[in-house]
């Protein structure tokens, strides 16, 4: 078969860009990426996986977290996480099958480590990134405590946080489409 016009154009574009359009797919670009070293990657990579992978050292309890919450979070999320201009975080009265479902952390969130991931990356809104890891653990503990998932004095850390059983863990259907 003769190459049509558009494939000819493609070949010439690739040739101009100095690309070998041979079989090796790794040759599809000019390879201008620069190797990233471990330290640079670690400072970028702050994500926490649902099994807790990536959780840092440190720890905190709900008792400690309440102090930070009242200072930094209450103005938007209300006393005890009952919600205000920011989402309701705890205290769901309605079930997920009720007319007014309340998708709080305790009622809806499938994984506890997500809470650490989210608070550390995004909170508080006015000074994101300003919390220490132990403060984040303490805030996480407080929100889990408000949702009656852990006792007030239980320390949340890299070992204990992934162990917290979230009631809605099996509540999701992965559509993947």
């Amino acid at each position: 078969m003769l190459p049509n016009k558009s494939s000819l154009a493609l070949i010439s574009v690739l040739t101009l860009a100095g690309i070998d359009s041979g079989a090796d797919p790794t040759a599809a670009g000019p390879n201008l990426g620069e190797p990233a070293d471990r330290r640079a990657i670690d400072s970028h990579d702050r994500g926490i996986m649902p099994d807790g992978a990536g959780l840092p050292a440190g720890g905190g309890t709900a008792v400690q977290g309440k102090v930070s919450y009242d200072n930094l979070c209450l103005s938007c999320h209300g006393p005890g996480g009952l919600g205000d201009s920011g989402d309701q975080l705890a205290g769901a009265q309605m079930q997920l099958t009720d007319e007014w479902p309340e998708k709080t952390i305790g009622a809806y969130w499938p994984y506890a480590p997500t809470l650490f991931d989210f608070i550390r990356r995004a909170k508080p809104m006015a000074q994101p990134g300003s919390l220490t890891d132990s403060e984040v653990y303490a805030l996480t503990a407080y929100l889990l405590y408000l949702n009656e998932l852990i006792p007030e004095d239980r320390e949340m850390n890299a070992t204990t946080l992934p162990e917290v059983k979230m009631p809605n863990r099996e509540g999701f259907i992965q559509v993947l489409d």
Partner: protein
Amino acid sequence: MYILYIPVNTLLKILTSANNKSLHLAAGNGLLDRRLFLQGGLALGGAPLLAATTVAATPARPDWMNRPGEPFSHYGQPSPHESEVARFASPNRVWRNNGVSWTPLHRLEGIITPNGLHYERHHNGVPQIDPDAHQLLVHGLVRQPLFVSMDNLLRYPLRSQICFVECGGNSNAGWNKTPSRAEAGYFHGLVSCSEWTGVPLSVILTEAGIDSTAQWLIADGADAFAMNISIPMAKAMDDAMLALYQNGERLRPENGYPLRLILPGWEGVLNVKWLRSLKAAAHPIMARNETARYTELLPSGKARMFTFTMEAKSLITSPSGGMVLQQGPGLYQVTGLAWSGRGRITQVEVSADGGETWAPAALQEPVLPKAFTRFRIPWQWDGAPAILQSRATDETGYVQPEREQLLAARGRHGFYHYNAIVTWSVDKAGSVSHVYAAQQEQSGADLGIDAGWD
């Protein structure tokens, strides 16, 4: 004021004088053959059907012809007479950097959204990023972790694609029990369509060498929310793009400058703006925005998650809610937009009698996959109350559902992925308003939806 309509009397005369008027009828209540607009014989082709109500008497030599005009500009702005063509912002009531702004679809034409009117969803404001201090990190399950600078990325072979981006929460007022009174764009306008230009994501991923166990790509944004979300590797290697340009110019800050992901046809939240890193992983990260939000609660209490594709939807943008058929009975052009995250739109049908009968609308070229498709059909309004609807079909055969069908399948608390048929009611005075097809739902208190914009 709204755009108003002037019936084309000439065409009307031709139509009414035709021996067999039914020749032109395509469906009940005055919908005419879509080809009428194209037939040169009707002298209609370029005739504008939309015009201002009152055309002031035109002097032989208007004022602006009697003095020199404005000088050149470095960056052109819309006419001051078009100041109402604007996004409508709905921020969080306390934290104004969180919320959305809507594209005024009802005031736009064609299929391309102007850059300044592309919808916005920000979780904590628009970062002002210095492109020289911004890099993309590709890491995780890769042979060689890489940093790519913006300058270097611009040296890769680029490609362009016209496609829509639609927020998963678009049209969510449709779940309300009371029909929204907002104008069309201010309740369906969390969707916009642009020509995006960038580097195919597969090129960079191939350069880093993705491990065969990496089924997911975790994307992070460089905004104050540090937005993160998981994307299946198959999509990343298929048609995903590292976008640098939007409609010919570099991305606007509110659309991800200097770099964003474009995943054609997929839910807006996955098209991460201000893209800063991509981590190849065996599993999704289960971020807050793919678990607590952007999941759809079903009546069973279970929730759908990883609902990526935006299914086919259509919307009549003109006439639409808040407009008036000011000139009374006559010929109007019904026009709107259709799009599907699964590919091309193959058909848009329009009804003027509340879904009793349907006529195929003309699809204006180009009809592109995963992009807005503009549709048009002539409609002869007889002055009686009418119910206008549009229904899209895509190339997979998927047909846009009735609202009742969608509610039956999903319940009321899904919040995201609302794509049901939109119904506009035209009253005797020509006023257009949003209604639900099932009459019993239109009374009663405003019951709102189950969650706010978060």
